[in-house]
């Protein structure tokens, strides 16, 4: 049976030579590919064909990679299971009755199932790390500003980054080497000094590495997940690393702050979908507001409508200070807590997801429960930091992910630590 990992299967050839020559890459369907439709998992963009490539797609081609298709995702990246896609859910290749995680579920499933050697995902609040954890593969969310977002269809642009998914840490790091670097077309990208390639950092040397374990990110986790987590921490200790507990009191507010900020940005970003330049037309009856409202009723699914409405509410007169301004305070507080933690630790470790993969259909009816599952991943986006999810055993055959968070532009450190945990 098909996993439904791809929305569009189409081959895009890259250069004859390059660091990724001979390698196949699956690309999440919110990343623009010239001449190949890019749907964002939405009916709104079912027929949208970008007239240009995203910078990361240009870099893949120049590096010699062959793109094999566009992968399934939660609609506009809004979900933790890939079930909000207008093109149906993707199944988890490890257990087809389970979700692959989301929102980059198609990318992680394609890699785990061998349908692509590597994949691109995007991570706004965990959307690379969650599916990597649920499918038993490696995913890296880069520091904000390391990878260009030009050509990425925006959901919450102050939070999101494009990043690699691969079967191994070294493979993910090799792909990150191709993606990283400044881009004139994305003014938030930075030039970052690199001593060596990220792939070279995957040397497994953790002797003397100091690991902080934020106790708040263990609260409420599944017992089996915690057992797997402590096993891998013990394994890193046996290789010369040390660990100590740290406190991040601010992260108790991370899920609230994340959703308020992400929904607010989404309500603004998705205003462009009005059925005129692209998307589902709302027809020409009545005035323009009525036409736009019809276009958006038809083109958007329930989760997208929920987030656009809640974001509109959080930004509206009378509620802005209560929700949006407080969420920005929380974001600043979380950044400071991470800075303090990194004054005495090289990396921070936690389970990526507090639970094993959900059963298909389990979480669809209760959006708040789905949001709460993102507790360990969203703080990293709010603090603009890099993080990797690497396989760390299983619970009754279902994959568990270890999340390692690094300081700003500390990708080499988390790659090194993750390569020792594999």
């Amino acid at each position, binding site marked *: 049976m098909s996993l439904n990992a791809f929305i569009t299967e189409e081959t895009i050839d890259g250069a004859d030579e390059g660091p990724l020559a001979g390698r196949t890459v699956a690309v999440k369907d919110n990343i623009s590919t010239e001449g190949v439709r890019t749907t964002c998992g939405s009916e709104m963009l079912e027929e*949208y064909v970008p007239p240009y490539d995203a910078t990361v797609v240009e870099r893949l081609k120049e590096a010699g990679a062959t793109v094999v298709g566009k992968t399934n995702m939660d609609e506009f990246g809004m979900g933790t299971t890939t079930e909000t896609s207008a093109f149906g859910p993707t199944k988890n290749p490890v257990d087809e009755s389970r979700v692959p995680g989301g929102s980059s579920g198609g990318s992680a499933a394609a890699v785990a199932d061998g349908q692509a050697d590597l994949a691109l995902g995007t991570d706004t609040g965990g959307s690379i790390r969650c599916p990597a954890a649920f499918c038993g593969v490696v995913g890296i969310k880069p520091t904000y500003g390391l990878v260009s977002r030009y050509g990425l269809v925006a959901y919450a642009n102050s939070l999101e980054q494009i990043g690699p998914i691969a079967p191994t840490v070294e493979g993910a790091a090799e792909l990150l080497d191709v993606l990283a670097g400044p881009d004139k077309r994305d*003014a938030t990208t930075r030039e970052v000094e690199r001593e060596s390639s990220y792939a070279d950092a995957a040397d497994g040397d953790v002797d003397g590495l100091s690991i902080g374990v934020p106790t708040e990110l263990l609260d409420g986790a599944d017992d089996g997940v915690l057992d797997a987590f402590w096993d891998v921490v013990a394994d890193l200790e046996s290789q010369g690393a040390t660990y100590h507990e740290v406190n991040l009191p601010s992260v108790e507010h991370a899920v609230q702050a994340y959703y308020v900020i992400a929904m607010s940005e989404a*309500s603004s970003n998705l205003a462009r979908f009005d059925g005129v330049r*692209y998307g*589902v037309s709302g027809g020409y009856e009545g005035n323009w507001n009525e036409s736009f409202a019809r276009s*958006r009723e038809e083109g958007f699914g329930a989760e997208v409508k929920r987030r656009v409405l*809640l974001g509109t509410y959080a930004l509206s007169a009378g509620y802005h200070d209560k929700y949006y301004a*407080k969420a920005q305070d929380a974001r600043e507080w979380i950044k400071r807590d991470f800075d303090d933690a990194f004054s005495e630790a090289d990396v921070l470790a936690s389970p990526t997801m507090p639970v094993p993969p959900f059963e298909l259909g389990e979480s669809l009816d209760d959006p708040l429960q789905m949001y709460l599952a993102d507790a360990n991943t969203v703080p990293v986006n709010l603090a603009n930091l890099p993080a990797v999810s690497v396989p760390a055993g299983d619970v009754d055959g279902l994959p568990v992910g270890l999340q390692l968070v690094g300081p700003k532009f500390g990708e080499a450190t988390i790659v090194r630590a993750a390569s020792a945990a594999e």
Partner: protein
Amino acid sequence: MSETPVDAEEVRHVADLARVDLDESELEEFAAQFADILDYFDALDEVPEVESETDLVNVMRPDEVREGLTQEEALRNAPETEDGYFKGPRVS
């Protein structure tokens, strides 16, 4: 109980602001879900005021003419066009 009660009328008002039509069943469903979600967001009240320490720097570039999309490329995804323009709904 949430400090911010949400009923179907409130959802309809926000949906109008956001330019999203909803049917009756969606209005009822969203009202119940929004009450739960906003109740959870209310915990942000406990967050202290935090001054931003970020040093923001403007990133400038010279304002030079460069290649953009052709008119044909820009129009290619539009549901309807007329005489080389996007066709939109009436503005009044």
